[in-house]
């Protein structure tokens, strides 16, 4: 059992990467597997530094493929296991994530997105959204939380462990390099103090009892012999996913109710939208934010309602429309016109959105 470091509410001023490690300790994660890649390194550094106090375990593997699969090893052994990665590491880790999807294994993956494609920058982007949501050779049977602050990183890292183990789908905490490196105050707490009980992590292998005597031996696989078997599994997974989606979906809005221009953004970009909304509202421009917190499953109904109410929609992200694609598919049939403000791999600030919205507003007046 991992020792708790935080028993009463403690405000700490730390980076997002440190926050993830502290949150994983608070969630009583047993073991982290990881491989160095910027900008997530300090998650591992912090986790490793805390080991003497937590009594948890850590393994630095030979690459992200191994980190991803070893995490699943930890999971089947009944441990609350996780890993963190970014960019090209995230790409090769999809191999393991895809296996987790097929075997319904509840691992937690923290992704601090960096510039792409390829090596690109070690800094920041929102270009790993499609990969997080639909990566792997499958159907995106996974849960993806997109955070926008260090407090969010703390809250959702804890939450992701319970979501993963409760619903048995691999679960992502998707952030970015800015959040990883950014220092911001965080209120750390013991999940129990918020009424959060950690979902038990029962072992698949080496469970109690003698295999073949007290219980059947565990045989888990990701390969099927025939099409019919696969179809049946996929239909079951989809049915399950649709059933649990309403329990998991989360979104956040800011002054969206009467917004004529609705800005749709996720993660840290949504914070810049809040800044822009405040500036624009002072000037009398009715603008609001819709921020999907879960990118998968998406809160479709609230999204459609907010979009229906608006006269125009603006998608903004530090990528070329990865979030927009996910949303637009679910907005089929709605006639609200939309515009875009994309800055792949580049930080978007409030002023950028202010200018863009003002330009859109001119069109709104003339049309």
């Amino acid at each position, binding site marked *: 059992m991992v020792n708790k470091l935080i028993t009463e509410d403690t405000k700490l001023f730390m980076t997002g990467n440190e926050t993830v490690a502290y949150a994983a300790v608070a969630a009583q994660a047993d073991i982290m597997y990881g491989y160095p890649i910027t900008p997530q390194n300090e998650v591992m550094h912090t986790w490793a530094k805390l080991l003497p106090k937590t009594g948890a375990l850590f*393994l630095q593997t030979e690459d992200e493929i191994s980190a991803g699969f070893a995490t699943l*090893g930890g999971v089947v052994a009944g441990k609350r296991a996780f890993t963190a990665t970014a960019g090209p590491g995230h790409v090769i880790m999809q191999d393991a994530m895809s296996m987790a999807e097929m075997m319904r294994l509840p691992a937690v993956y923290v992704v601090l997105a960096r510039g792409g494609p390829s090596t690109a920058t070690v800094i920041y982007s929102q270009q790993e959204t499609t990969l997080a949501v639909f990566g792997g050779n499958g159907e995106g049977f996974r849960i993806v939380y997109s955070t926008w602050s260090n407090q969010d990183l703390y809250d959702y890292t804890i939450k992701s462990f319970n979501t993963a183990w409760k619903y048995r789908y691999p679960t992502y905490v998707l952030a970015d390099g800015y959040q990883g490196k950014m220092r911001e105050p965080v209120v750390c707490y013991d999940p129990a103090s918020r009424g959060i009980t950690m979902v038990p992590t029962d072992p698949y292998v080496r469970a109690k009892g003698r295999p073949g005597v007290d219980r059947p031996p565990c045989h888990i696989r990701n390969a099927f012999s025939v099409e019919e078997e696969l179809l049946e599994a996929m239909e079951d997974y989809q049915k399950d996913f649709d059933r649990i989606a309403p329990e998991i979906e989360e979104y956040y809005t800011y002054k969206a109710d009467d917004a004529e221009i609705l800005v749709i953004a996720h993660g840290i970009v949504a914070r810049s939208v809040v800044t822009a909304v405040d500036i624009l509202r002072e000037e009398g421009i009715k603008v609001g934010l819709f921020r999907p917190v879960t990118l998968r499953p998406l809160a479709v109904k609230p999204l459609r309602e907010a979009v229906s109410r608006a006269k125009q929609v603006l998608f903004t992200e530090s990528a070329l429309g990865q979030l927009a694609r996910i949303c637009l598919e679910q907005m089929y049939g709605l006639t609200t016109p939309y515009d875009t403000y994309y800055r792949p791999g580049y930080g978007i600030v409030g002023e950028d959105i202010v200018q863009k919205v003002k330009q859109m507003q001119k069109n709104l007046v003339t049309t």
Partner: protein
Amino acid sequence: MVQILDIPPKQADAVNCEIGPSKFCPGCGHGITLNTLGFAIDELELKERSVFGCDIGCSLLAWNFMSVDSVQTHHGRTTPVIYGITRAVPGTVGIAYMGDGGGYAIGAQHLVNAATRNEKMMVLLVNNTNYGMTGGQMAPTTLPGQKTETTPYGRDIEAHGKPFLGPEMVASITDEKLNYVARGSVNNLRQLKTFLKRALTNVADGRGFSFVEVLSLCPLNWRTNNVDTWERLKEMESFYKVGELKVPEEVKGVK
């Protein structure tokens, strides 16, 4: 009067008899290797502590072959899944079962690093000199001149390099006192069982990484009849030296 003796074949308790006939091709070496592993586990009474992981390729067909807890993984990724388990639950006897492609090609980095890190686990690698499940392509272990689907005119050393000497490689990066490394053959199951028992004991004792390669048969892809199949195995044995490369003092007594 003729008396018919009705003696059922001897089966290891660590082997799952409930699945009926195995899914391996007739004449394949996997079944006998796994049966031997089953006896080794039985004799050492390690069934409860063991976790068996199998790769992609023909080895995946072993996913329910054993009656020990089993995980089937991706191609080349059995080693990290198994050390993920043994790191999380020390004392587990982790067995990563794979073919020559899984261990020496797509998963070679895991074999090298698990060995150098001295992961407390065992890799059991079946060498049949080709990729069986995908239809008989060249493997890292394909013999010089051997015809495969991707070397239809025979493996050309100039173009494809020399066959991969796995146990020799593992022996060169591991520790005399901690690691067990051997190459066995399905030609000599008594010896293979001893090798497997020593490897398992070494892991069960918590000493360290153990590696056994098994020279095996693939008559379907080799396109050989019974006689030629065993002739081919002899050829392999003359190229790949059968025997022990590293034996820690403590396991020498294990027979």
